[in-house]
């Protein structure tokens, strides 16, 4: 089980890393989502016990570690906030530059910098 869970975490992380390297900002955001999935799954998998849901009345036998569940919940919600913010940023970038791919953005940035330097020289 441990091996299997870590393999799945690795696949999630690898796919996320692959997407983060793309030039398309929206794919980068999806990549970040996958990476946070990997983190969440790691958290869940690191429970010391596995069993039934830890809800009263307690079932016979072992219950799952509630602590990691609480932490995963927190991480999930924070991941959600971060992803939403990333999306907001991506959209804002699109609005100002009409592009969300890195190469175009880099060109744009270089152009602006050159403009600024020109202004400084003329001042």
């Amino acid at each position: 089980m441990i091996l299997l869970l870590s393999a799945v975490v690795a696949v999630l992380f690898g796919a996320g890393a692959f997407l983060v390297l793309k030039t398309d900002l929206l794919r980068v955001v999806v990549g970040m989502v996958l990476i946070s999935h990997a983190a969440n799954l790691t958290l869940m998998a690191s429970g010391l016990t596995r069993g039934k849901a830890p809800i009263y009345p307690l079932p016979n036998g072992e219950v799952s570690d509630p602590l990691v569940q609480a932490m995963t919940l927190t991480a999930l919600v924070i991941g959600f906030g971060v992803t939403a913010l990333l999306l907001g940023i991506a959209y804002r970038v699109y609005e100002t530059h009409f592009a969300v791919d890195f190469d175009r953005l880099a060109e744009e940035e270089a152009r602006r910098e050159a403009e600024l330097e020109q202004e400084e020289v003329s001042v």
Partner: protein
Amino acid sequence: MSLPARVSAALAALAFVLTLAGWWSGSPGIDLPWAPSLGLRLSFELDGLGVLYSLLATGIGFAVVLYSGAYVPLHLEHQQRPHRDEVRFFGLLLLFMVSMVGLATARDLILLFVFWDLTAIASYFLIGYDRQEAEARTAALMALVVTGVTAVLLLIGTLVLYAEYGTFSIPELVASVEPGGTVTLAATLMALAGLAKCAQVPFHFWLPRAMAAPSPVSAYLHAAAMVAAGVFLLGRIYPFLETSELLLDGLVVVGFASMFVGGIVALTRDRLKQLLAYSTVSQYGYVVVLYGLGDTVGVVGASFYVIAHALAKSALFLTAGAVAEATGERRLSELGGLRRAMPALALGSGLAAAGLAALPLTIGFFKDELFFQAGVERSPGIAVLTILGAALTFAYIGRFWIGVFLGPTRAPAHRVSALLTGPVVALGGLVLVGGLLPEPFVALANAAAEASLGAAASVDVFYHLDARAENLMALSAYAIGAAALAAPRVWRAAAETCARLGERLGPERVYVATIRSLNETSDRIHGIEVRDLRTRIAAILVPGGLLVLLGLLATPTAGAYTVGSLDRGDTALVLVLATAALAAIATTLPRQHLTLLLVAASVGFSLAVVYAFLGGPDVALVAVLVETTLTLLFIGVFALMPRASLRRLAALRTPPTRRWRDPLVGAAAALAAFLVVWGALSRPSVGESVAEEHVRLTPDAHAKDVVTAILTDFRGLDTLGEITVVAIAFFGIATLLRRGRLS
């Protein structure tokens, strides 16, 4: 005087009195545990050395604060700065004082190091007090870099000693050190830190630069703090230094070199404070020589020298400041004849100058007597060098005082506040008192030497009216010095050449070149790092990944990985996990954004099912909720963007250079994650988990679901943080979408 000046003066006076009282009553000091597991203690004690430097720091500090009460408002007025900047000045001066007293009384090497750096920080801000001037900023930075970098040597020396003897406590170390390579190494490193702090060759160049500071700061820096801290350290670590003859001889060489370099350059300087700064280099050269010559006479002489120098030099610096305030001139060539306009100042600084030139009836006579005595005891060659050094001092100090106060009046002086002349007269008076009644000062020096030597020291000084060696040497020093003063033409050209040679080839060039090349390297790395967003992120992630890799390599792997067990009931879980993994791989394939989104969402939903199978219904529910909302959010963004743009994005081809790189990096990342996570999951912590307690206490929290009880009760603060993050993200998004307007 303004309120901050009054408060500072009162505090300085109080500290002075308390130090005296503590010395008188033989206060046992303070000894509190600081970090017991590291063997660190907050341990302070007023031993002789501590008393000497604490008295200097608070006593000279008191005089300097009084003087600053009049000086700083004028200074700020010249600079057209607001009066409230005064608070900053006095606050920093007090910090300086506190760090100096802490340094002097610390009985623990780490504590000593902390205060050592604190003096550097205080001096950095004080030297750069006129922060609008580039010169002051450069000077402050230079002082900080030179003394700060060498301070690391002090720390390394400390750690070397700790590694060998297992303690930071100075008395324990003194009791246990034995001559040998380790101690010599540690003592050399520490001595280098001390020599840099007291501006000895080849570290001397920062001190004349530091003249950019306001005059009272210079006075304090040179006489009682910062620079004095350097020789204080030599006194404190003297037990380590004396284990190696070679090290002591090295000190003699460095001391004489500083004495002559400082003295010769001082003869050529035109700006008053520059002259005095080089004089300080030369004067602390004497002290370093005295420590190097060692023995009772040398060590007592060194401590006594510090007292005499502190009184005289602070008075002379305050004189330079008062003269500059009165006439607006700072150069020797523009000044002259001020004895008529400022007789009190002329008297006070005349006494101080006489003290430095070692004339009889001043405390300075005895400082040179001890110096000559230590030289004679060593060898005739050293004795000749001591005479030459003293003659140089006589010449440049004479040049200073005569140039300012005698001769024709060159610059008219207007009246200055009594606070500007009072401290000078008082300090000059002390120089005279020390010449007539040297006993208390000698007692202080003996006590300080006792702390350095670890044995009682009882050197006494008297006037001997006979033809003993010391007297003859003093006379010949006066004669040579007076001859040099009378015939400047003889040496002027040679001294100028020496000074210019030093500027051309001196260590300051090395410093400038080092700083410049460091700056260029940093710029180059920065240039690579910030080329675009990707390189910026890579600059953080690549080193991070490398660190993790190093951690992996350093961790023993034997038995670190376990496969874990699978039972029949897990079939469903395995299937869902496989689905999640396949979906994750599938996210790398689609071109269309909507397809990509749906595949990514299916990863999230399958993970929700995984969570459910792992016994976490709450997590599964929240995961579903989050995944749904996120998917909708993505769709919303896609809907906002024109279809043509999305289509163009989808049609983007990966450039051929990246076609292989991206999957490779992804695979490497996956492999690293696999190794790390597998290793972490294979070895769950063996200790007791707090989870059991949580489960037990849940009914007391009036809850049935343990996870909710943890979230809302046991770890409620975490949840508060989480809510805050979401709220901040919300505000961020709202601002972004409304183009920076929230309302």
